[in-house]
């Protein structure tokens, strides 16, 4: 294989990896505060991109994205307040099942609003055929946008959790909810905040990947499955690990196409996920003890 092709496969792997990673980050925030996997995360991604596409008809792209992120955050808040806040004994299983139900409802509502048409946001820079050449490999500028936004989100989240009051309060809730409450932290508000943040990051992910993957009412499911795989692969709850997990999976998938028929691409990623779960249940970068702290 020539070096040019080698780098082209790497570029394809980066594309997949960062798309998965930016979706995966959304899973981590809710997981960190509540210990649940939000199966409606893919629907946040879909809502964000579909709303932005609709708004983009009336306003410039940056404004449309900003508004759609805000709208999706509000949806996330409403969701949490209506369906989770009042739960008397919020067991993990119960909350997970609620998120599954919600994902179906959101999908059906989106189908009623937008129909089944396939849409897309315009490319942020250039158009469908533009590409940037790096080491002889060609890569769409949109992929660079995904990489850039993904990095900014990861860094911003680290700062938020480390240095802000709300961030620290959220981490306190994650570590020990009872103790956090005794310190005067409103745990319920922290859960709402985690839904709002997740929804916002999901929506942003939806906007930035839309030119590459296209948007449709049911786009959330396959993206969420891959995002979930990557989140587990890296180690749940850690954004940096999600990015690393995304890159590992993306590059493996890309090179699997080189060696094998592309029909097996998804089978390979699931096989890898199973192996990791057998041998490193905490994920590639997670610690077993940390996982044991959660109720899951």
């Amino acid at each position: 294989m020539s070096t040019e092709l080698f780098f082209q496969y790497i570029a394809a792997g980066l594309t997949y990896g960062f798309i998965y990673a930016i979706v995966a980050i959304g899973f981590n925030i809710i997981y960190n505060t509540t210990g649940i996997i939000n199966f409606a995360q893919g629907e946040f991604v879909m809502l964000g991109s579909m709303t932005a596409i609709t708004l983009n008809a009336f306003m410039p792209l940056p404004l449309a994205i900003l508004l759609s992120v805000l709208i999706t955050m509000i949806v996330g808040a409403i969701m949490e307040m209506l369906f989770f806040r009042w739960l008397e004994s919020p067991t993990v299983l119960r909350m997970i099942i609620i998120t599954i139900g919600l994902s179906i409802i959101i999908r059906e509502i989106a189908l009623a609003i937008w129909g089944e048409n396939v849409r897309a946001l315009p490319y942020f820079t250039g158009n469908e055929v533009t590409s940037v050449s790096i080491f002889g490999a060609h890569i769409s500028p949109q992929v660079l946008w995904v990489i850039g936004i993904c990095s900014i989100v990861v860094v911003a989240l680290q700062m938020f959790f480390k240095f802000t009051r709300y961030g620290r309060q959220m981490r306190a809730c994650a570590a020990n909810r009872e103790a956090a409450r005794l310190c005067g932290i409103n745990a319920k508000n922290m859960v709402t905040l985690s839904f709002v943040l997740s929804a916002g990051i999901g929506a942003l992910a939806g906007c930035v990947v839309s030119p590459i993957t296209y948007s449709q009412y049911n786009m959330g499911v396959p993206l969420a499955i891959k995002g979930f795989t990557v989140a587990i692969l890296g180690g749940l709850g850690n954004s940096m690990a999600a990015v690393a997990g995304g890159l590992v999976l993306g590059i493996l998938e890309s090179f699997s196409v080189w060696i094998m028929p592309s029909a097996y691409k998804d089978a390979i990623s699931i096989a890898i996920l199973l192996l990791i779960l057998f041998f490193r249940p905490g994920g590639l970068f997670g610690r077993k003890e940390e996982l044991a702290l959660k109720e899951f």
Partner: protein
Amino acid sequence: MRFFKGFLLSVLMMAFMVFPVYAAETIKIGAILAVTGPASFLGAPEANTLKMLADEINSKGGIKGRKIELIIKDSGANPEKAISFAKQLIEEERVFAIIGPSTSGETLKIKNICEKGKTICISCAAAEKIVNPVAKYVFKTPQKDSFAARKIFMQMQKMGIKKIGVVVGNTGFGKAGKAQLEKLAPEYGIDIIISEVYDKKATDLTALVTKLKAKGVEAVVNWSIVPAQAIIAKNMRQIGLNVPLFQSHGFGNIKYVKAAGAAAEGIIFPAGRLLVADVLPDDHPQKPVLMKYKRDYESRFKEEASTFGGHAYDAFMILVTAIEKAGFDKEKVRDAIENLKGFVGTGGIFNFSPTDHNGLDIDSFEMLTVKNGRFVLLEQK
């Protein structure tokens, strides 16, 4: 009060007894279409077309004085639903004929039901199996899918292309296309050097097109539906794989061109002439039919007419023409369809025979391409 109830009941019963007498003056035509669900891009324009035609004919006094009563059932592309709707239409509604279903899978499931029920079925689906072997009561209007593959290979011969790559989505449509392409390629001296299947929900296909590039293909044939058919076009151009891209006849909707944007330019695909109606030469026999259908459809529904709606147009008009010739006897109408020659429809010029229940030949397909975001005839480019 009791008297009143009894009175009401008897009035109702009378109404029920009287009703069939009125109903007898209409002619019931059933339709099983995938108006919603994964094949709504077929079923929705088909249903619109039928409603439009039924209204038009009824406003002119119906067929031979009898108004059309159109019963459209939405199968959502689900074969099980298609089966129960077919039984319902034949046994309960006792329809004169069935238009549809929209998809090949559904049509194959109800083929035998229509045969047993001795009810004419004019399908809007592509698969060759629908009319091969010939079933007495089953017809279809879209061009056979093997024609699409042949037309593509003929074009490749003209362009001197020998080594190609075939990529398809993992849907029934994609797999059927792959089988046809692999079967017919040797006849045209074309070598398929790589053949790949990808997930229909794939979000990006850069790795796959890189593989095509590495193999040194001279052209790529893609057989899938949205969004993959737009993604493959984008990814090919992005990595600089600048060989001709051929798509299936499933590309025949201007919405897909918009989805692929600049990457759609130069894509070559076979399709019926509806998409290029306005650039057809004026003396083309199909031009008046195509222009009328396109104008009527677009002014009423405010969306671009697609070839799929055209299949329903052909099915309906073939049925109407046959009824006008043969009257209201099902058997005679069936014979009339089988002997219909030179019927000008949107899909082409139909010449039915006892051995050919499709009636179209390979010339019903035209090779089209995309230029400046619009469909044009390849030879005009």
